[in-house]
């Protein structure tokens, strides 16, 4: 019946209301979930007056009509070979997979273990590393009160991943974490904590995989990264879930003195995807890059929101976000570079380039600056256009069809980001997909 609105609680909301702390998990974690549950029911969804939601539709990430995920490992039928295709060198890779609220170990890496690198599910970490986790979760890097959606994540989360690289250790192998879509009609809220202690180094991948869905399912994830003094962390996320999966991921990172942080986000799948990336440069000398690319098609919607918060002097941050929209898809970028008074000698940049490939596609872009220190170099640029006709014509004159020419051009356009992915097999996957799918 058109126009009716229901006020009934969805199955998952009913469970939230009835939820009682579980004696198996630490009391502090239960308290966190309980207070998040209260915030959730006391808050209305954000609207346009919240600048972070100028673009983007909060209704897409609501808990309406959903229930808690129950799927078991193997549910998605994602074959081991496919994972290897992405991760390479199957026998030596550390790889965990999460489906529903269950985490299984697909493969483990002896060199990593020997180096003292910890890779485990969040539940395991709550049991074995409770105190450490409590420090990270209570530090407020991603506050529960931020908005109703973050509150819904904390209220529901009971598993995810914990990665810890001890001081001075260079992780000898990359770490692969897989997020699989839940069953139709389900919601899952994975929480990921990645810690690289002082002078350590690591490469972490998060792969979002799914299959063709029968009905909507939702992921509300949070990833928090802590980069110690002089540490170096690269976090690559590649998302290619089924066409009815909605995902909202909030990613926050804080860097120590001279820390290096690189975040790469590639988005291909899903229905409504929102990715929030917040960078807190709290100590001097840090260098950070936020890189993103997407190719959205059909009726997909992708929103990317970022913050580059320069709170200390002499830090450098660079955001580069490139994407292409076709068919009836819509993508938006909104982000802010905040330079505090004390953050002199800041170098900060934002670049957003979008290709609009079809008449019904739409792109929105709002790169923003709020600068309170004057000895800085800050700039941003944003362009939106179709593929350059002159370039197409040139390739045609070399014997390529229009289609092939456009695909090559778009693929070349994305190369600036794809080339930064620190794993050949993952890079190939990204290139092949773009070459195949661009109109």
């Amino acid at each position: 019946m058109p126009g009716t609105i229901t006020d009934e609680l969805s199955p998952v909301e009913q469970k939230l209301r009835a939820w009682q702390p579980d004696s198996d998990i630490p009391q502090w974690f239960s308290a966190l979930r309980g207070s998040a549950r209260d915030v959730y029911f006391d808050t209305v969804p954000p609207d346009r007056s919240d600048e972070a939601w100028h673009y983007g539709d909060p209704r897409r990430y609501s808990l309406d009509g959903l229930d808690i995920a129950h799927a078991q490992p193997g549910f998605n039928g994602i074959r081991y070979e496919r994972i290897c295709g992405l991760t390479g060198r199957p026998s030596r890779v550390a790889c965990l997979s999460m489906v529903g609220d269950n985490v299984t170990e697909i493969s483990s890496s002896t060199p990593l273990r020997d180096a003292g690198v910890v890779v485990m599910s969040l539940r395991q970490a709550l049991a074995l590393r409770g105190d450490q986790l409590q420090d990270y979760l209570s530090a407020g890097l991603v506050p529960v009160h931020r908005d109703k959606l973050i509150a819904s994540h904390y209220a529901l989360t009971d598993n995810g991943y914990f990665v810890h690289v001890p001081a001075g250790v260079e992780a000898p192998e990359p770490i692969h974490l897989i997020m699989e879509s839940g069953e139709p009609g389900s919601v899952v809220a994975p929480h990921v904590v990645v810690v690289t202690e002082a002078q350590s180094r690591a490469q972490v991948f998060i792969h979002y995989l799914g299959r063709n869905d029968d009905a909507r399912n939702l992921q509300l994830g949070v990833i928090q990264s802590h980069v110690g003094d002089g540490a170096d962390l690269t976090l690559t996320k590649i998302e290619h879930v089924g066409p009815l999966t909605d995902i909202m991921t909030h990613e926050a990172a804080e860097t120590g003195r001279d820390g290096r942080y690189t975040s790469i986000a590639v988005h291909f799948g899903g229905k409504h995807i929102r990715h929030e990336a917040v960078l807190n440069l709290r100590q001097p000398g840090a260098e950070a890059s936020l890189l993103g690319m997407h190719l959205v098609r059909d009726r997909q919607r992708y929103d990317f929101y970022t913050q580059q918060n320069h709170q200390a002097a002499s830090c450098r941050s660079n955001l580069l976000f490139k994407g292409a929209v076709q068919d009836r898809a819509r993508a938006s970028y909104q982000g802010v570079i905040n330079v505090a008074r004390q953050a002199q000698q800041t170098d900060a940049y934002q670049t957003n380039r979008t290709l609009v490939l079809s008449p019904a596609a739409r792109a929105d872009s709002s790169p923003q600056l709020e600068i309170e220190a004057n000895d800085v170099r800050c700039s941003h640029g944003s362009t939106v256009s179709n593929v350059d006709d002159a370039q197409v014509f040139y390739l045609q004159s070399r014997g390529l069809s229009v289609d092939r020419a456009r695909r090559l051009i778009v693929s070349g356009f994305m190369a600036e980001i794809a080339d930064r992915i620190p794993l050949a097999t993952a890079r190939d996957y990204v290139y092949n997909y773009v070459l195949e799918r661009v109109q």
Partner: protein
Amino acid sequence: MSSNAVTQQPEVGAYAAGWHDPDAKYSFRAEPGLSESVVRQMSEMKGEPSWMLEFRLRSLKHYQTRPMPTWGGHIDLDFDSIYYYLKPEADNARSWDDVPDAIKETFERLGIPEAERTVLAGVGAQYDSETVYHNLREEWQQQGVVFLDMDGGLAEHEGLVREHFGSVIAPEDNKFAALNSAVWSGGSFVYVPRGVQLEIPLQAYFRINADKAGQFERTLIIVEDGAFVHYIEGCTAPTYSSEALHSAVVEIIAKPGARVRYSTVQNWSANVYNLVTKRAVAMEGATVEWLDGNIGSKLTMKYPAVVLAGEGATGEVLSVAYAKDGQHQDTGAKMIHVAPGTSSRIISKSISKGLGRSSYRGLVRVHSGARGARSNVECDALLLDEHSRTDTYPYIEIDEDSASVGHEARVSRVSEQQVFYLMQRGLPEEEAVAMVVSGFIEPITKELPLEYAVELNRLIELEMEGSVG
């Protein structure tokens, strides 16, 4: 406030409009605050047609229910204590002795003629520009050009006004457009017939018997096919206003092939909230250019806009903003591409000094069907001191695959190298900084009428004094 039947003769000079009506039904004691009776009184005193009263009342209703904006500058005004139409006599009593020394010095340094100083400082009677104005008026009359204050425009060209008033900026557009729509008074009405090219710019200054600096000015400019006009308002010299709230509305209709350039430089005193809505509709092949200079006021919120509604229309905004201690310039531009073959350009240069804050806020929106739209935006911000602040809030919304849109913004400080180089040529440091700043805004000042450009540069020199060391 009750309306007793007692009528009084107002003293001429006590009321800005110089109105006099011995048969008034209302007692015209000035009252603060805004209410339906104030609006009815105003409309009656002006002798307006009933449709304008209805327009005002509808706007008032909307103003009263519309919430304040949640973005932009901080507005700290007691709206209930503002006089929206009639002002009490006492408020106008201000003598030359009351004018701050700093302002008197500026007049001296800028070489402002004696006679003008009193007007700018808000202490004198209208400057008599009657003679200069008279000759121009004859020429305009011959060409069929209409240039009146808005009240006069409504009285003498009701049909034209009714057709276009509120057609570009509806009262519901934003809270302050609603306010202006309810209590507007003064401003200009300009009509330029088909094909007429006005070589001499029209200046707000030339309107006789009207508020030179009204609180709620309403301007409507209609330019017919193929015509050209350049309209100028404001001035670079510091202008005192006793009114804390200035909320103007400017609507421009540029018919096919018309070209309109609207130049503004404001240097309001530091007590003024300057909240302005300015928008033009450009039809086929028409061009509208906004030149916007913001130097004064406590807070200015102003985003000149062009709706590119006809095929091949072009729009341009050149904007300069200067903010020092206690000032917030929140300015920018909007370009809305609706028809095919349109192009737009926005150039914004801002300077922040001391604790001043200047923000660029802009929109480029390309609707589906605006084939081949081209748009380019450049924002440059110069921060002079350690704690000066600048913000950039651009919004780019593209719904057309054949459009090509680019936006760039840069923030920097005055280059030490450049200053050093100039000092090597013998310039004192302050002058060197002033020269760098002038060079920074040169792309815009070169488009301003010469006297404005000269005054603006002199003003910058003054401002840079004491800014170094």
